[in-house]
């Protein structure tokens, strides 16, 4: 069979396939939808044949284009959103966390060491803390947690201020998470920088409140959302560092391939961590500043920490990897 015969024989079938693709691409339901896979297989076969027998680039290009469009239609990656989210939360995310537990140990050290060092330094010599916070930082901390400050609960009674703070935390904290992740692309340096900086800063805030303010005001505010926010940040940091390590020590792979693999494996950590930080914003916006007794707040805060530990240790254990 030469090219001309080949084209004459199949042109009609190709045209039908193209027509069906156009319908399917525009989102309409076509009448003969069940024929799409078999027509696609035929196109694959024809393309291979045309390439092998070298029926010229015109036929090959045409079939190549049809095959690409067909592939996109057949392999559309859409599932039910709810099911996907559930599977992610109950299986993929905690499993990915456990797989990368060593990275969790690393990011925890990187964050908590500067945190406690800064806090400890406030008892010894307050100037380090003062230098880091600056005059504006100290003033705003004294405004919120100072000895004679209007409590956060009081400030939040204005109409819509809870919602406003929620939006602020989403914008600010989830944005920090994303930068934390992306910073991993510079051999992990960006991630390390943001983690250490946040550790130092939080440590300085705690230290300064202990020095000049009323620690109970601070603790009752942060207790509720602390687990979501800190763990979320650390989990995203894991994804960022994973990329950094892949670039530093790619092992048997090329650096490009190692990066691709690190991106794929770290993805659940990025999405999961960002979701945790978004939840933190909900708690921080609508619970943390509500006027409840201190004991209730501490209890809720501790309960959230315990729940997080249980979640990461036990959920999805023993289930087949998703």
């Amino acid at each position, binding site marked *: *069979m*030469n*090219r001309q015969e080949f084209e004459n024989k199949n042109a009609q079938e190709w045209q039908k396939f193209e027509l069906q693709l156009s319908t399917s*691409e525009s*989102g309409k339901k076509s009448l003969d939808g069940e024929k799409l896979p078999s027509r*696609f*297989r035929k196109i*694959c*076969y024809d*393309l*291979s044949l045309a*390439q092998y*027998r*070298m029926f*010229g*680039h*015109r036929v090959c*290009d*045409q079939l*190549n*284009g049809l*095959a*690409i469009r067909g*592939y*996109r239609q057949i*392999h*559309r*990656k859409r599932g039910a959103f709810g099911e996907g989210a559930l599977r992610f939360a109950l299986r993929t995310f905690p499993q990915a966390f456990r797989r990368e537990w060593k990275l969790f140990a690393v990011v925890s050290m990187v964050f908590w060491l500067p945190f406690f060092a800064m806090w400890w330094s406030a008892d010894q010599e307050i100037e380090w803390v003062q230098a880091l916070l600056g005059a504006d930082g100290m003033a705003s901390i004294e405004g919120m947690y100072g000895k004679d400050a209007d409590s956060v609960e009081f400030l939040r009674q*204005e*109409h*819509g*201020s809870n*919602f*406003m703070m*929620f*939006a*602020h935390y*989403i*914008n600010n904290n*989830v*944005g920090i998470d*994303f*930068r934390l*992740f*992306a*910073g991993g*692309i*510079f051999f992990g340096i*960006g991630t390390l920088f943001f983690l250490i900086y946040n550790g130092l800063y939080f440590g300085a805030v705690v230290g300064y409140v202990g020095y000049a303010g009323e620690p109970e005001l601070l603790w009752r505010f942060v207790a509720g959302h602390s687990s979501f926010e800190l763990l979320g940040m650390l989990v995203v940091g894991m994804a960022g560092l994973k*990329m950094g390590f892949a670039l530093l020590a790619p092992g048997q792979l090329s650096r*490009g391939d190692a*990066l*691709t693999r*690190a*991106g*794929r494996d770290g*993805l659940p950590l*990025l*999405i999961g961590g960002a979701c945790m930080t978004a939840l933190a914003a909900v708690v921080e916006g609508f619970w943390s500043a509500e006027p409840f007794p201190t004991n209730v707040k501490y209890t809720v805060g501790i309960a959230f920490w315990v729940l997080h530990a249980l979640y990461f240790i036990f959920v999805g254990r023993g289930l087949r990897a998703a």
Partner: protein
Amino acid sequence: MGSPARRIDTLQTVELAEGMEIHLRTAGPFLRFMAFLLDCLVKLIAFGILNLLVVIFMPLLGGNVTEAFRLLSGFVIWWFYDVLFEVSPWGATIGKRVLGLRVVDEAGGGIRLGPSMIRNFIRLMEVFLPFVPLIIFFNPRFQRLGDLAAGTLVVYSRPRIDPVIPGPPPLEKVPVNITLSREEEAAILSFRYRSGGWSEARRMELANHLAKLTGEVGPKGVSRVMGMAHWLEEQR
């Protein structure tokens, strides 16, 4: 999926699970940079509209609520403008769509939320150190760091169909008396089907490369090559 051949070509060969090979045409740095500039412009306009809306709605909803909407919308535009457009059926941001580009995974399929987030978040870091995006020039598939981490490519959204401009029909069949490889056969055939678009001088220049095979140079060589193409095609 087989790993693509490492050669310098704008066509990337990908083997699919169906057992066939397709060719993807990856887009080069210039077009992608233009798409990036267009997207920056679109984002700028979006922020402008957002600020306008804030000014309009401020007296109606009150300061706090309006500020909250401004922050949330700003967050979505800043971090998710590219992502939302890339996971849509377009598979491209507005800038890429205008220039006829599309983001695909390594097999040429549409991309999902996760990889799109990876490649776009990393871009914000890449523009931070302006020499980093230059690695695109050292990658055979024009991938920047974000593309590598996400496993994505930017390709032309429509396959290019080369125009067929056959030269004047050959008068004779000229048998080829040596065994040609498949690529060589293909080259001779496409000489016939593209020569209509070339000047006579260009045809002769190309045909002279085959002087050893045809035994002729100049216009005679051209007609010999055309005759060979005719013979090769009729043989099948």
